[in-house]
């Protein structure tokens, strides 16, 4: 079908235009400049009539282009009308004529400097609110825990075992693999650099102390935050979205006691075990690389390790694990309960949960380092 045309003719001091052909969306690209050209050329006329009787097809695009031209002329004090409008298209033209087609001017943007300060301020209050929520959740958790201690039969043991399987047992393979690799990489880097000044054997000290005190627990906690913390947030969030948590409340149950306590207790049990397994795997990986790459035989490695690390290093690492578990669990549950109705908020809260819990794990690790240094361990 051919694109529409606008044939112009003069009638007295008025302009008589005849539109023909197809005035549809697919031709709008050629129609627009043509209509604009006619509108611009014939600016100084007293009246304009557009004959639309010979149009084959027209849709809202064509109708608007004609209407727009008429409005331009009208605004210049010109009389305008449409002639030969068939019954089929009358409704369309009326609909188009009824619209303003004008966008209200955009609201003024605030000064960029002010906006930056504003967003920084808002973020700071959000951080404060987050902390308050975390403390609030910790309080609710302790209350729920005490209540369970008084009435142990109300504790959801089955639920906790289920979570223990998911966050503990099922996490073992991936934790072992990652920590083994980390231990191996530490040892390899150590040997590579220590060798230049003949201190290869100190690699055992480095791997032993680092893994047992810091790396083991931190890597495990980061893995758990990414794997289980996010799962907690997503589960609680989707329960919140489907009003399941409200349903629990209306039945007189405390969501903290029913949903959150078993989850966090499961983490508190699982994370130390995973930390222990992870540390052992990292030492094994370190030993393996020392042997194959550094030529330190397993016997020498074990002897050296025995001298280098004390049980205290191991304890320092292990004591941190349950605290880390609580932090991960708290953040995950707080974020989960903050999910609003939409799927987007579930996604952002899950991301927030992982980011915040990893951040807090590292902050807590730093706090522990300061603490242990000051008591001289």
């Amino acid at each position, binding site marked *: 079908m051919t694109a529409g045309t606008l044939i112009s003719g003069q009638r007295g001091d008025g302009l008589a235009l005849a539109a023909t052909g197809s005035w549809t*969306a697919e031709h709008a690209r050629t129609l627009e400049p043509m209509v604009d050209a006619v509108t611009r050329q014939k600016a100084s006329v007293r009246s304009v009539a557009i004959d639309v009787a010979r149009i084959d097809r027209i849709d809202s695009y064509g109708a608007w282009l004609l209407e727009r031209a008429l409005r331009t002329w009208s605004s210049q004090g010109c009389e305008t009308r449409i002639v030969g409008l068939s019954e089929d298209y009358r409704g369309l033209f009326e609909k188009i004529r009824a619209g303003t087609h004008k966008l209200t001017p955009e609201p003024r943007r605030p000064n960029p400097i002010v906006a930056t300060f504003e967003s920084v301020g808002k973020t700071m209050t959000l951080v404060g609110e987050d902390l308050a929520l975390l403390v609030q959740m910790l309080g609710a958790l302790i209350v729920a825990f005490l209540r369970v201690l008084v009435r142990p039969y109300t504790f959801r043991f089955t639920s906790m075992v289920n979570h223990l399987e998911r966050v503990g047992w099922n996490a073992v393979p991936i934790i072992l693999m990652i920590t083994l690799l980390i231990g191996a990489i530490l040892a390899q880097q150590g040997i590579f650099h220590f060798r230049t000044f003949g201190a290869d054997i100190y690699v055992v000290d480095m791997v032993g102390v680092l893994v047992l005190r810091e790396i083991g627990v931190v890597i495990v906690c980061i893995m758990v935050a990414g794997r289980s913390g996010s799962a907690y947030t997503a589960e609680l969030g989707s329960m919140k979205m489907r009003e399941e948590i409200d349903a629990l409340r209306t039945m007189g149950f405390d969501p903290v006691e029913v949903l959150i306590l078993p989850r966090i207790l499961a983490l508190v049990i699982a994370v130390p075990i995973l930390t222990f397994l992870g540390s052992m795997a990292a030492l094994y990986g370190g030993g393996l690389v020392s042997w194959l790459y550094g030529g330190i035989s397993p016997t020498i490695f074990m002897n050296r390790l025995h001298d280098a690390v004390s049980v205290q290093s191991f304890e320092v690492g292990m004591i941190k694990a349950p605290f880390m578990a609580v932090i991960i669990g708290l953040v995950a549950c707080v974020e989960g309960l903050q999910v609003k109705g939409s799927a987007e908020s579930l996604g952002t809260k899950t991301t927030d949960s992982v980011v915040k819990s990893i951040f807090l794990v590292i902050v807590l690790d730093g706090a522990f380092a300061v603490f242990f240094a000051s008591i001289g361990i």
Partner: protein
Amino acid sequence: MVPAPNSEVIKVRDLIVDFEAHRVLNGVNVDLYRGEILGFVGASGAGKSTLARTIIGLLPKRAGRIEVLGVDIDRASHEQKRAIDRRWGVLFQQGALFSSLTVGKNIEFPIREYLRLSDRLITEMAVAKLEMVGLSPDVYREYPSELSGGMIKRAALARALALDPEILFLDEPTSGLDPISAGEFDQLILTLQQTLGISVLMVTHDLDSLHRVCDRIAVLGDGKIILAGTMDKMLESKHPWLMSYFHGDRAHADWHVRVKG
């Protein structure tokens, strides 16, 4: 050009659709005529949405033939399919507005993709579509998450109408709306269909909207079309499911009066 009356814009023949081992549609024959509003009804799970989604090409079919605007979808080239995509608009049940774009950009999206027009004309057309569906131009800058359910449906309808389609698919357009909004939406569909001359295929559960809007109704059951025809034909039918659907507690008394009287 005046379109020939009663020509089919969509022709479905012997359509079979399986979901894994379960046969959902088993030999469906249905036509959508130019300029009519056809309503699909049927029990939940009868395959109304499946049929609509198969016609749009979102679901694969096992066998059968679907012709849209005279083109057999199976034999169509990529360009032909794209041309057909341009000539239909789909209103999804939840609106399916892109959440990362403002309402205005949502409506402009298909216009920008398919027609290379000046920015001014694109914006004017987007605003025109908003006004056509009864929304204020201010909605242009809002995000879908800021709108109410009824406004989302209207904005989504505006996007479906962006390219002035010849066929409009509506999936439960009035679900989730209060009766007043639903009534207004029905009226909107009716006026738009009349002014723009669109052929409409709607899946619905809303007896009021069937009654007020649809020219013809196709009833799906057991994977087939049980009956297709006008509302009067539905009310006269002695099919047990149709009897309970159209004469049940939720059907309005005045319809029966109309048929009997």
